[in-house]
């Protein structure tokens, strides 16, 4: 990119504002804490970003397609216990991995079918499956945490050198999903469907299939998220992921995806997740008081998006 287009990028893209914000927080932390720029801490941050980031990739596609997926938090919990229980029952960790992703895929597919075939609003559909998936996780385990300590769990806790495996997965998946979104027909169709579903359909796009696909993807990635979270803790609690949906959606929107559909980039989403993770790390490093943490998170979310809005006034409405 030449100089001019860098400036243009910064002026026109929401993810640029968040990237700027990320850089500021990063520099601030470098000066504020001697421990921030240690390999160990960066590795912690990388791990803390990963699950939210991975789940946000799928959520981003759903939102770009004009939907929303509130069920991801519960799917994380359900997949985590599925991974642990399937591994334990079969003695085969690989089946645990398959199970976690498959159960997420199934919930996502169900969401997609309810939204497109029965035509239930996505917010309502996934609010419903949020409850159902959590209930199922509790029912399956009787509320008991499940030991999950095998090579499948290694995906969650393992490191290669200093780098968490989770983070490598995030990086790889980001590349794959970004490629999917920008360079494949199905990915471009996701944007078209979210932008104007009616026009997309008349232009020959199978809208229902596109929507089912993104929900299924989002569910699968949430399933993977559950596997990683359970693995990281070497313990799958049915309550894992409780409330994650709001964090994930915040990351997606921080990253520049429009809640109204049709707009947003995958790279931005990961930047959004990184900003949220960095803040949480800052709280611990700088001993920020509990109540101020809550307030700060709120302020940053508003600031990041607000700075961007002031920068570029919308032309519409």
């Amino acid at each position, binding site marked *: 990119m030449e100089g001019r287009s860098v400036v243009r990028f910064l002026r026109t893209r929401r993810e640029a504002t968040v990237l700027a914000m990320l850089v500021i927080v990063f520099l601030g932390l470098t000066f504020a804490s001697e421990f921030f720029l240690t390999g160990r801490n960066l590795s912690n941050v990388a791990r803390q970003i990963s699950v939210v980031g991975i789940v946000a990739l799928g959520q981003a596609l759903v939102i770009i397609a004009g939907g929303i997926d509130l069920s991801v938090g519960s799917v994380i919990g359900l997949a985590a216990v599925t991974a642990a229980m399937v591994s334990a029952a079969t003695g085969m960790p690989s089946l645990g991995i398959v199970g976690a992703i498959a159960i997420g895929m199934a919930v996502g597919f169900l969401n997609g079918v309810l939204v497109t075939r029965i035509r239930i609003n996505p917010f309502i559909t996934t609010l419903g499956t949020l409850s159902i998936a959590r209930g199922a996780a509790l029912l399956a385990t009787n509320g008991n945490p499940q030991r999950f300590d095998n090579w499948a769990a290694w995906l969650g806790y393992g490191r290669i050198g200093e780098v968490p495996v989770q983070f490598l997965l995030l990086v790889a998946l980001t590349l794959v999903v970004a490629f999917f979104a920008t360079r494949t027909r199905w990915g471009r169709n996701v944007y078209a469907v979210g932008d104007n579903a009616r026009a997309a359909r008349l232009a020959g796009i199978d809208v229902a299939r596109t929507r089912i696909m993104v929900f299924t993807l989002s569910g699968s990635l949430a399933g993977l998220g559950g596997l990683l979270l359970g693995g990281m803790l070497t*313990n799958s609690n049915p309550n894992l992921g409780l409330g994650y949906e709001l964090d994930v959606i915040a990351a997606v929107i921080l990253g520049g995806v429009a809640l109204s559909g049709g707009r947003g980039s995958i790279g931005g989403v990961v930047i959004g997740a990184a900003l949220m993770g960095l803040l949480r*790390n800052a709280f611990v490093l700088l001993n920020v008081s509990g109540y101020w943490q809550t307030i700060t998170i709120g302020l940053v979310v508003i600031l990041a998006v607000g700075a961007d809005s002031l920068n570029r006034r919308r032309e519409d409405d």
Partner: protein
Amino acid sequence: AAEVPLPDAAKALGATVAAEGPSEKPLRLAVLSFQGSSFWEAADKGIAAATDYLKPLNTTVDYIQLGTGLTAETIVAGIDGALTKQYDGIATVPIFDGTVAKVNEAVAAGVPFVAFIADSAERSNRTVGMGQLAYDAGKTAGAFIAKQLGGKGKIAVITGYLGAAQHDARMNGALDYLKAEHPDITIVGPFECKDDDATAYSQATDAMTSNPDLSVIYVTAGGSEAAAKAVRDAGQTGKVGVVGYDDLPEKQQYKDGGEILALLDQAPGRQTFESLVMLHNILAFGKEYPADIPVAAPLALGKNAKP
């Protein structure tokens, strides 16, 4: 070394563990705890007292606040941060099983680790674990309830979060005991109130309406004062009593009023204070403590309790 006398603030919390003396080299301790309720506020008092007490003894205590959301990931991230910052010792409330691996990692790295209030159900290699044994506390509650009922009657159970180990253990400790020892006691519920007062209030109200023969409402976590308020509002004071946890100031009026029969207290301030002092003694003097320090579950009785 001579024990350093405890300050009044610590005595008020019921603390008995004293420092063996000042540390030779400067020590840095990290304590990690949550915020958001009067329970954690009470725990904070112990942290503040220990911070003041240990400062002249060459030990600094840094309080890493974990915020208001109790999750395993938050605790793990907090411990990770403390390890990064190379503290000499760590004290926290590792309430979830998901913290076991991280605690073990800290101990393996040579950082003594003290758990207070609630340990994970699965045992970690933590240096010391102090706190109530939730299942046994539940059993104590069950025995108390059975005594109040004379072995016969009906109780309703309102639990905090289903799947939260401590809440489940308190629930099951009581229910397993009652089912085994007192089959004539009928159990209604459990109902999950997610530590929300308004929900607990409604559930208590509805339970009394649909069970005119109800005698006790057993609340395993947040919401016991709301349940007591429901009893008062329903005009059932003296007929229905609440058994719950944590003897906190806002519940006093219901103990006095007779709606709360008993509260099992955990002395959170004492636990945080003693955890930090133990860490100091371990690091500065190589003192050894038992790996498990059970904290009794004393019953703070209300006006209407049968002793």
